[in-house]
């Protein structure tokens, strides 16, 4: 369906990434946000809490991030699209209930405007070191989806996509911004509501009594229900069967966990998103995401000016990872170069997928600023030397 015009601020704006993300959420139909103040993410909820009273949305500033994430999972079970927003330390506190969201198969969006860590780290300065936490930060086995925007425009566009993916696969979607994109102000074009595609919460057609919350009926994702419609369903964070009833057995664990994994892994080709440039005949492929992708472009241009054939992959969806793409390139390129503002997270995934056929060279630093393009350039030149 198309977006509800009540949430769409059509026009040409000059927004930072945080505001654009908030606008994207409202355009996507988000009507419940719970959050706790934390730099550099707070402007997202500050945007939302000014506009929500005009469109039937509810914002609540909870007592901490544990509560924020728990409230979001609860709210999502009323059919209301729900979101929370945080940065590193708050993201750590949300992990347990992100796991609950994964286990209960709850569509919702978690925004992390990444700053430098660990611990309190660099509250006002950039980092990209929560990427593995986004994937596996909660205990146990599950698969989630994570996106990474490179601009305020994408902070708007991809927040809508994040909500849509959360509905399609019934998972919490991690929206992994970074401080630079969050605080960067650029032109943001918000289109008319009737051209913004949103995925509504499709509820089951089955009557109460015939519906079970985790019955698959041959599909990859179970049908939705919401509290208050007379279904009197049960859901739990415990290992559960198709009825949502706890079953403490290895067999049920296998069924339950395998389903959480499969619903993403079997649909990777539909979920992955990336920009690819000049991959044909590339000697070196650089892979980056978020703000680092923008810095990388300069390094690529410098190397291309020296006659090096450099391909570029910009991850838009980071998790699940475009494994097939890397595998297919691994036999062709001399090396992958992976700049990221951490000491090696996504580069390890590139290395795994390359399977020893090409090295994956990380260009790392601890955060607090973007890369010096020369460092990426040197890595590219070193790879072809």
């Amino acid at each position, binding site marked *: 369906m198309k977006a509800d015009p009540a949430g769409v601020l059509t026009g040409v704006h000059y927004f930072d990434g945080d505001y654009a993300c908030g606008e994207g959420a409202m355009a996507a*139909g988000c009507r419940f946000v*719970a959050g706790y103040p934390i730099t550099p993410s707070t402007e997202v909820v500050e945007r939302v809490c000014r506009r929500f009273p*005009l469109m039937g949305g509810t914002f609540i500033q*909870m007592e901490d991030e544990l509560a924020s994430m*728990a409230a979001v999972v609860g709210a999502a079970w009323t059919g209301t699209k729900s979101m929370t927003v945080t940065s590193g330390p708050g993201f750590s506190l949300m992990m347990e209930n992100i796991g609950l969201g994964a286990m209960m198969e709850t569509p919702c969006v978690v925004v992390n405007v990444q700053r430098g860590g660990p611990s309190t780290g660099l509250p006002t300065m950039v980092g990209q070191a929560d990427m593995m936490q986004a994937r596996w930060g909660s205990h146990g086995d599950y698969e989630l989806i994570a996106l990474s925007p490179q601009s305020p425009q994408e902070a708007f566009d991809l927040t809508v996509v994040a909500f849509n993916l959360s509905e399609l696969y019934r998972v919490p979607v991690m929206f992994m911004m970074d401080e630079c994109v969050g605080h960067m102000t650029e032109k943001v074009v918000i289109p008319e509501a009737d051209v913004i595609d949103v995925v509504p919460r499709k509820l089951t057609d089955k009557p109460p009594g015939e519906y079970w919350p985790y019955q698959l009926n041959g599909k990859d994702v179970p049908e939705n229900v919401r509290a208050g419609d007379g279904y009197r369903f049960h859901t739990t964070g415990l290992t559960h069967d198709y009825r949502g009833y706890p079953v403490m057995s290895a067999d049920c664990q296998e069924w339950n966990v395998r389903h959480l994994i499969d619903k993403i892994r079997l649909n990777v080709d539909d979920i992955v998103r990336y920009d690819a440039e000049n991959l044909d005949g590339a000697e070196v492929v650089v892979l980056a995401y978020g703000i680092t992708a923008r810095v990388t472009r300069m390094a690529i241009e410098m190397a291309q000016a020296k006659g090096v054939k450099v391909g570029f992959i910009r991850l838009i969806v980071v998790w699940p990872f475009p494994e097939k793409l890397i595998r297919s390139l691994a036999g062709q390129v001399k090396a992958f170069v992976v700049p990221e503002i951490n000491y090696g997270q996504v580069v390890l995934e590139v290395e795994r997928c390359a399977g020893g056929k090409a090295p994956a060279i990380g260009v790392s630093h601890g955060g607090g600023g973007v890369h010096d393009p020369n460092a990426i350039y040197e890595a590219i030149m070193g790879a072809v030397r």
Partner: protein
Amino acid sequence: MSATTTAEATTLEHPIAPYLRMDRIPHIWCPTCGIGTVVKCYATALEGTAVNLDKVAIVSGIGCTGRVAGYMKLDAFHSTHGRAIPFATGLKLSRPELQVTVFSGDGDLTGIGGNHFIHAARRNMDLLVILVNNFIYAMTGGQNAPTTPLSARSSTMPFGNFEHPFNLPHLAASCGATYVARWTCLHIRRLTRTFSEAMQRKGFRFIEVITPCSTLYSRLNRLGTGLDLMRFYHDNAEIRHGADTSEVSIGFQEKIICGKFVDIEKPTFLEAKDAHYQKVLGEKYVPMPPEGGWIHE
């Protein structure tokens, strides 16, 4: 007893069976545990109060009492340890017509979940909070709780507890709860009436129910069987409606002051929100619809 009456008896349904997930019975609670009694009183109150059960949701945390949501035939959520109240807050705020009950234990709601408890009370969040207090972390084997009375033994205070426990009605009342009561699970009729009355109130309603844990608390403290504890409640519970909540703390094997301590009216979170935005934004204000923020084709 004739064969016929036996046959009839086996086909008779228990009066609260329609409120339970009978396909999940038998439950996991120990013999002489008090939680089942509290569930019976809650179900009886639902039956006696003209609430639309389709609009009642129940949320539990983790622990023995955390299993209650799993047995109630309502929209039921077994959430994470300590987070039943914020989970319930999300449910209530995004579908305001729901009547949301939080049903959990002392450790869950006031130990790991203590911060949420005080803030939900402060906000006067529209939740009925039923707290079953067995003075101990029972599911994990009898560890010390924020409610364990001074000098009582627990598995992590084997020489007796030296930490000051919470006085829960006082905590709830001082944080802003608009309805506060305490009973033991011996007070079946009074507890049921209190549940019924609280269901007809709004805002943050807190009911503490003292229950025996004969498997752990009672055994560690040599208090006898569940029946012995019920006798203790009979002899030592004192009903004092309207008591000053600062005077209802519970000592080890001392008097248990019961009754309704607080019953006042104050705008709930949602009432305050709606009234405030209507005042400052006028016609521009769009409240969350009672049926929630579900956007659909």
